């Protein structure tokens, strides 16, 4: 299959859909069926993506990272330095394209139902298209500059979509917060790019002149700055993937319409950070990897803990997303490219599913909630909720009932499809062994981390492994908490329960499809064969072992015999053998462990929320300090709003004054001196020099002018005195001189 035209179509289709909208609206009109335009465009893109994937199927080995096809042309020819723009096509790209187009198409379809009746219905789809374009552009770019461009564009789309219902203050604030927070990370990324550019005079990644090729020749002396550069680039990912400490925007982003949350804030954009980090894999050094791993690990754990105490169904999912992204980062940091991307894809599907599911619940529930009044943009109201992050109260105050799990319960009877599909997704994210894709990817990560720990004997990795495992338990716990509170048990709010109904078909279908995708078939099939782990020349492990690990890990789980793996590179028998032994160790520990994890997690939440053996409130009461901490999300928002933002704004205010007074106020300084100089003309200086050097100069000169005027007394004899004085003075001076 021809690559360039297909990719071009993939990009242009959604772009065209958006352009159509934009141009039309210049004339002040909208096309009411924008939804069809966008959806069709997306489906076209999807088809192309599938076609492209056949290339990978055709020649799996060729299209691995080092055989990547690159079609680029010069974008900024400056003369000696040139910036190029182009397509990079390898197996990873192919997979990403597939994931993005699938999720995006499904979300489009879902939205047709969900957003129905919204006054800005066409605009919504136009923005979705723009987003899809940006995301796809990001995925296919072959160089950092291109990635950065796509990167910022998805940011804007997220801004526009979060703030889609901008009449509300909450979305208006949320979208600004999202943009600013990610922007902070992006600046870090940009600085990283500057460092790389200054060193390599290019921003292309692959090819002989690419960054990777050049970076591989770097010596130990360069490791420090390379690590710094790596971490800086990673900053961008931290922002976009909502890693700690820049994670606070994601929960607020839930102010956007739920399909947006599903597409942007679960499946694609937030995953872009992971994608970027993965792309940067070859230039990661031991240090930068460790940083990434820790950020990932901590995020995974912290976010999970916060999720436990949320009652807003979307918030729970948001924190779970953050946590899962942490897992992915952890994997890449731990040196397993494959595990990371693998989890990315699996997560994309089941998390999208979870969001859409929650969307359908909210939809239903909301309809119930407002059974009486048929106001049009009901979906809009459906997503209302407080972002008052300071609400330390533990009651449901401020949370939209339609999203408050404490109003739900027993919905399985009313919404079977939603229930089943969401259950599947939950099982998947919880990592129920073998049957669900989530298990494979999460397991792969755990194995990798543990494997590093063993083979390097590295304490760090043992710690990280601990975090990950714990996070996994908690994940299982809060996810089932969600299921139990929502679908199981008895309805808590009878009136709303009665109003609830299963979502219409065009919303249900996407759920079903995604549910199917949450089984490991697709993911395993796509990953086991095609994605290959690039080298990390700067992490000094036995080279081949390094190379093997990712492969081996996966093969191990996919039940491919290690012999096969070894056969792939016979010339490293011993090393391979050695690494395999470590690897088996890891594997043999993790697989049973994950059984334990799942059991503990689900069991506990069942005890709490299904059989009601324990009362959550009682525990909460006993552990109140911790509970408070979790409820307030570790006070990150307070920190940022209270300190950083406040400081900046205050600072700017000060500077504003400074500009008004001081630049004018070089002025006061000089002014005072002059005043002292000619105190008798103080009258001229009485009025303070409010504004500007000019005023000041004017005042001084005027003052002097005034003096000179007064010398002009009008009495002729004074004039004559001046003459005589002048003459005498001149004579004296020049007498002295000569």
């Amino acid at each position, binding site marked *: 299959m021809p690559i360039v035209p297909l990719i071009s179509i993939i990009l242009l289709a959604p772009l065209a859909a958006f352009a159509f909208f934009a141009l039309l609206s210049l004339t002040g009109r909208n096309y009411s069926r924008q939804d069809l335009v966008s959806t069709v465009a997306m489906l076209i893109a999807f088809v192309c993506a599938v076609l492209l994937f056949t290339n990978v199927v055709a020649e799996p080995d060729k299209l691995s990272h080092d055989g990547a096809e690159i079609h680029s042309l010069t974008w900024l020819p400056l003369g000696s330095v040139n910036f190029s723009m182009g397509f990079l096509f390898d197996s990873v790209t192919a997979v990403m394209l597939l994931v993005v187009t699938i999720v995006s198409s499904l979300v489009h379809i879902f939205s047709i139902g969900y957003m129905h009746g919204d006054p800005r219905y066409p605009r919504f789809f136009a923005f979705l298209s723009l987003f899809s374009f940006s995301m796809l552009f990001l995925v296919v770019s072959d160089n950092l500059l291109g990635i950065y461009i796509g990167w910022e564009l998805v940011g804007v789309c997220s801004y526009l979509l979060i703030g889609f219902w901008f009449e509300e203050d909450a979305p208006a604030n949320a979208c600004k917060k999202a943009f600013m927070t990610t922007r902070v990370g992006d600046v870090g990324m940009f600085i990283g790019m500057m460092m790389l550019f200054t060193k390599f005079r290019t921003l292309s990644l692959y090819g002989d002149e690419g960054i990777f090729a050049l970076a591989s020749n770097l010596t130990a002396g360069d490791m420090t700055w390379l690590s710094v550069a790596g971490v800086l680039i990673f900053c961008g990912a931290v922002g976009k993937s909502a890693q700690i400490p820049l994670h606070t925007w994601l929960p607020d982003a839930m102010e956007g319409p739920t399909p947006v949350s599903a597409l942007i804030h679960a499946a694609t954009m937030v995953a872009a950070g992971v994608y970027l980090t993965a792309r940067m894999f070859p230039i990661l050094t031991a240090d930068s990897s460790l940083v990434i791993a820790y950020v990932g690990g901590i995020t995974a754990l912290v976010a999970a803990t916060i999720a436990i105490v949320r009652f807003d169904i979307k918030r729970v999912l948001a924190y779970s997303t953050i946590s899962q992204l942490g897992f992915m980062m952890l994997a890449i940091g731990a040196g397993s490219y494959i595990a990371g991307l693998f989890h990315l894809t699996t997560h994309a599907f089941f998390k999208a599913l979870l969001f859409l599911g929650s969307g359908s619940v909210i939809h239903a529930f909301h309809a119930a909630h407002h059974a009486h009044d048929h106001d049009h943009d009901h979906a809009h109201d459906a997503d209302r909720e407080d972002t008052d992050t300071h609400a330390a109260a533990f009651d449901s105050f401020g949370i939209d009932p339609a999203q408050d799990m404490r109003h739900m319960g027993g919905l399985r009877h009313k919404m079977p499809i939603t229930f089943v599909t969401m259950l599947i997704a939950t099982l998947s994210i919880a990592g129920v062994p073998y049957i669900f894709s989530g298990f494979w990817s999460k397991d792969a990560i755990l194995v990798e981390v543990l494997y590093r720990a063993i083979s390097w004997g590295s304490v760090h990795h043992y710690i990280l492994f601990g975090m990950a495992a714990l996070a996994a338990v908690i994940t299982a716990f809060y996810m089932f908490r969600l299921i139990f509170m929502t679908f199981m048990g008895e309805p808590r709010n009878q009136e709303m329960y009665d109003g609830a109904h299963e979502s219409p078909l065009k919303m249900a279908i996407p759920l079903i499809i995604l549910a199917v995708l949450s089984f490991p078939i697709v993911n395993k099939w796509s990953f086991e064969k095609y994605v290959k782990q690039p080298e990390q020349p700067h992490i000094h492990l036995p080279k081949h072992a390094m190379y093997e690990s990712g492969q081996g890990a996966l093969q191990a789980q996919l039940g491919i015999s290690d012999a096969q793996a070894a056969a792939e590179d016979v010339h490293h028998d011993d090393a391979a053998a050695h690494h395999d032994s470590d690897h088996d160790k890891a594997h043999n520990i993790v697989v049973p462990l994950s059984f334990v994890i799942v059991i503990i997690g689900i069991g506990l939440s069942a005890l709490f929320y299904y059989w009601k053996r324990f009362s959550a409130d009682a525990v909460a009461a006993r552990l109140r300090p911790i509970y408070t901490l979790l409820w307030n999300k570790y006070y990150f928002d307070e920190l940022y709003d209270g300190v950083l933002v406040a400081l900046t704004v205050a600072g700017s205010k000060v500077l504003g004054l400074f500009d008004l007074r001081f630049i004018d106020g070089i002025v006061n300084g000089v002014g005072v001196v002059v005043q002292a100089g000619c105190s008798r003309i103080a009258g001229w200086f009485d009025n303070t020099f409010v504004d500007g050097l000019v005023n000041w100069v004017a005042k001084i000169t005027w003052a002097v002018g005034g003096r000179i005027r007064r010398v*002009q007394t009008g009495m002729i004899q004074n004039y004559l005195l001046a*003459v005589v004085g*002048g003459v005498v003075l001149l004579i004296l001076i*020049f007498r002295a001189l000569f």
Partner: protein
Amino acid sequence: MPNIASIPYFIPEIVLVVFAVVVILFDLASKKRGGEGAAYLALIGLVVAVIAAIVIGSEDRSLFLGMVRLDSFALFFKVIISVATAATVLFSIRSVELDPATKGEYYALLLAVTLGMYLMASSTHLLMIYLSLETVSLTSYILAGFLTHSPRSSEAAFKYITFGAVSSGTMLFGISLLFGMTGTGDIMLISSRLGEMFSQGNVYPLAVLLSITFILAGVGYKIASVPFHMWSPDVYEGAPIPITAFLSVASKAAGFALFIRLFYSGLQSADASVDWSLMLAVVSALTMTVGNLAALPQQNVKRLLAYSSISHGGFLLMGGVLLTSEGLQAILIYLIIYLFMNLGAFFVVILIANEVGSETIDGYRGLVSRAPLIAVSMAIFLFSLTGLPPLAGFAGKWILFAAVIKEQLYWLAIIGLLNSVVALYYYVRIVKAMFLETADDTESLSFSTGSLVLLLVFVVPTLLLGIYWNPLYELSRASLGKLMG
């Protein structure tokens, strides 16, 4: 050249004298007094004189046993002065403040002043210099005080004569010392003798210094340079506006002619011992600064222009301290340009004084709506005085500063240019009043076509000379002739 033989080359001056007499007689003869006849006679006289001067030509001749010199330099100034005088006459016709009854004498006196200025431009002997200076002064005193029943005018005349008498007396004392040292009155001889004396070393620097400083007092009073400027604001304000215009241009020009003759062909060699060029540099810096600063708070436009002309005197003086022909050329060019823009500005002042009856800036408020053409031309004159391209003033400023910087007197150049920024500030005050503020009464003013035509006579050169001023340069070079060695 002996006396009799000189007479043919002295025709212009003679013409002036004759016409002065004729004007008086005509005035006595004519039945209805205060007709414009006298004025037109005076004009004719001026025209004839200038034509005569031009016809006689400008190859160097020394007349009346070295009393006066006939050269391109003198011719240049004669023309300038005549133009200024002619303009003054035309202004006077349109001025309402002058008493018609006495206009006869008035024009006669104008011609007399012109005669004196002709001589100032051409005299090469200490005696002649002093005589011409006094001729001009005495007549100017009278003209300044010409407004009968106007206290301001009389006061102006009083201050003018007191100041003038003292400083010219001082100058005469300096001249006497110079005469004593060199034993001659012929400035050419003086310079050569001074040269010898310096080379032989038998000279009293103090004496030279004294005489030069005293002479400077006289010259400085004519060109109104600090500290000898103090008479001019009062006199300019008190005198009839046409006379003010006349003094600010013609009298300054004549003063510079005298200055250049005396200091360049007479005392250049003295610069070695008494660094008078430095002295003058300081004086010029002071002059423009004081002039500009004092102009800032002025409300009376006449007075404001008086101060502005003081500062322009300082500008001109910059060219005189360089001891280079570029410097002198700059002076000549600047004088031509200054002639147009300054006279133009004063003419507007006259018109406004006539129509609005106000000399203060408030009288100019909202002028653009009442008399657009006048307002625009005034703006042109003022911006040209500031020295903004593409107006003539910029050309003058440009040449001047080019000359100064060429001599690497950067400090002087910087002071001068910063002054031009200050100058902008007070010129713009008038512009602001005319364009940015609104008039109290808005009925539009009407002016005679004659006035408007006359206005254009000043506007057009102010515009054109800014765009193409090469001829000025050539002219000035030619006029300088052999003056610089």
